[in-house]
């Protein structure tokens, strides 16, 4: 029974981390370094919350608008980095701070209204009912679907080609900009979905700054799974577990700072393991990740 309790309490956060990390992996597989992820995550959390307040906790609209806002920011990132010779890092971080600011602008009025109406948001996942099982099914199903798309379809080959060597990909007939936009739409939609799950299934409250840092955890989930959709299921579960049970870890006597750093230590350890073993050929970073890509330059 203890296992069921662990699985059920970890389910909502795992879903949120997994969706966001899966989206992040797809974006990065196409060659776009996504340092905006934490900002986008926080913005989508705020949008989901605000829309839930304004629509009296409608189950659909907050998610749709949250996903749309994530895609909108994502497209700015993807378009500028693929069309112009600009630094992926600079654009990503600028967008992150912009999103932090916007999340306040969007969330605070809704929070004020919540204070007046007492409207509650989200849907608690009860360990007693079996809804949590459904969340795992969604995670595993999506994992296999995305793995299939990446490894078995033309779209997957296009995304990987754009991330490995965009100039060669272009010469082979791939429209790198279009491919990255496609990957961006898909990826940021998943990040937005993850953020909505975080707000509506996990925290179900909002104050300024809700979600900050969790985008980075999704980033770490993606990195430590080598951007692999199926491995990501395991790392997302592990990270959600570490976060959910961080107080239990504190109880063992570990300093709080150490407990907070655990997800990142796990990520670094995982990456070291990959790089030191034959896994590195399968799980390595896309070769052109974060490199400016210009078509017009003379190549030899």
């Amino acid at each position: 029974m203890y296992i069921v309790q662990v699985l059920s309490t970890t389910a909502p956060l795992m879903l949120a981390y997994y969706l966001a990390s899966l989206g992040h992996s797809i974006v990065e597989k196409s060659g776009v370094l996504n340092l905006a992820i934490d900002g986008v995550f926080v913005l989508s959390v705020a949008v989901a919350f605000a829309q839930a307040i304004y629509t009296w906790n409608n189950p659909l609209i907050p998610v749709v608008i949250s996903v749309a806002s994530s895609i909108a920011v994502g497209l700015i990132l993807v378009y500028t980095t693929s069309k112009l010779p600009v630094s992926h890092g600079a654009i990503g971080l600028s967008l992150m701070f912009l999103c932090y600011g916007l999340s306040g602008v969007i969330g605070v009025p809704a929070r004020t209204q919540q204070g007046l109406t007492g409207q509650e948001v989200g849907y608690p996942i009860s360990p007693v009912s079996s809804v949590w099982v459904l969340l795992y099914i969604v995670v595993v199903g999506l994992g296999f679907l995305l793995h299939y798309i990446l490894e078995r379809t033309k779209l997957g080959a296009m995304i990987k080609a754009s991330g490995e060597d965009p100039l060669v990909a272009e010469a082979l007939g791939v429209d790198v900009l279009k491919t990255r936009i496609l990957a961006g739409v898909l990826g940021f939609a998943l990040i937005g979905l993850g953020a909505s799950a975080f707000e509506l299934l996990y925290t179900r409250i909002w104050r300024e700054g809700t979600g900050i840092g969790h985008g980075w955890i999704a980033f770490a989930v993606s990195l430590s799974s080598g951007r692999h959709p199926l491995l990501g299921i395991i790392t997302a579960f592990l990270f959600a577990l570490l976060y959910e049970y961080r107080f239990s870890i504190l109880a063992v006597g570990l300093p709080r700072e150490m407990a907070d750093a655990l997800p990142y230590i796990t990520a670094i350890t995982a990456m070291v393991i990959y790089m030191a073993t034959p896994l590195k050929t399968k799980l390595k970073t896309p070769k052109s990740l974060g490199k400016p890509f210009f078509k017009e330059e003379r190549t030899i």
Partner: protein
Amino acid sequence: MLVEHIVVKEVTKRFPGTLALDKVSFTVYRGEIHALLGENGAGKSTLVKILYGIYTPDEGEVYINGKKLVITSPRDAVAHGIVLVSQTPTLINDLTIVENIILSLRHYNLFTRTRRVYSEVYSVLESLGLGIDPNTEVYKLTYTQKQMIEIARALLLKAKVLLLDEATSYLPLTEKKKLFDFLKKYVKKGNSVILITHKLPEALEISDRITVLRKGKVVGTVEKKKADITVIRRMMFGDTEFAPEAIKQRESIGNGVTLFIENLWVKGELGEYMVRNVTLSVRKGEILGIAGITGSGQIELFEAIMGLRKVERGIIKIDGVDTTNKDTGFIRSLGVGYIPDNPLEHGLSIDHTLAENIALCPKYSSFIIDWHAIRQDADRLVREYGIVTPSINTPIKLLSGGNLMKMLISRELEYATKLLVAYNPTRGLDEYTANKVRRNIKEKKAKEGLSVIFASEDLDEIFELSDTIAVMNSGRIVGVFDKYRATRDRVEELMVM
């Protein structure tokens, strides 16, 4: 009846500081193999890249089947039945063969399973004589296999015009013959081929007509029947004289051993042994040529000599100093020059200027860089090797492939005092420059006692340059011959044994 297939009219293309093509016009007829010749930097590659949509012309027009076209991307070109196969394979190493090929096939939608193309790819590969599983990742293939994959791709794309930019230069003889037979059949079906090559006999053997470019201009087009090698040479190089190669080689070999390798074992990229129990020595003033088909372990052997790859077992000594698993900086400081197999990635920094690339040489890299000396040397090398560049302060990515190679060779040859380790030292060079490079190597060996170990897929070069020929096959040295005792047949036999 001759039908015009491709017509290029007055095409001009400028790059910063250079006029790559100057009002170039030429015509390719349906069903012909048209060779495009010219010295390095003549504009051949630029011209086919324009046809393939990698560059757009500044002026001029391109007509295909009588229709004026503006080709702005390779996708466009493919849609019009034009496919380019270049000297460097344009494939993504981490994807499988099928994945690489499906990227180009437009009639499949985004969610087409790669498996659907599998059998199609398999049968085309088989028709080219390649029995490879299409699900193999490209990085596991040899250079020759990659080139054949490119040709297979062109066929799957239903190419009507095949642009071969030095694509045949490094194919082993047997593969080349197969390919030429295939091309002859291919053009009989009403397709056309534009072939760029540095090997005049090759061009004369296979093409129907030959167009010569020089410094971005068309010198003329001749039919094969009326062409002979001296006429074409004159068209390509003007009245530049071809100095005969008359340097006495034998006397210059001394007794001391410069490079000594014993029982060497080196692993390749995938962890399997690529160099197996190799024992070799190169005497002072000796040129050792390693013959072998690509991927026989030559690259790994050279990387081990240069300290770029771990030696698992065995010893390497340079001039008596044990250099086994020593770092590259130390090995180079002994006076060792190196021309790697992938010059653009491992020999040059293409975003930097010519002078800066010369400054990378260890002899300049003390605490303070002596820019004055570097500029003087750079100017001299540009003059001596005829490197075509607007200035020594031009980023070298703006230079043509052949000029990049000249710049690398000049630097390394200048630097090497004891030993030169070279992989395909004349890759991508025109006949004149290649001759000159070989002569420079021989001169340096004769005058200064430089020892050379080089590998080449070009047997002509092996026989021309070497004092001693070693044949490498599957990581082992399977035969060592004195140049005068070796026969071509025997060497070829050992290469493919």
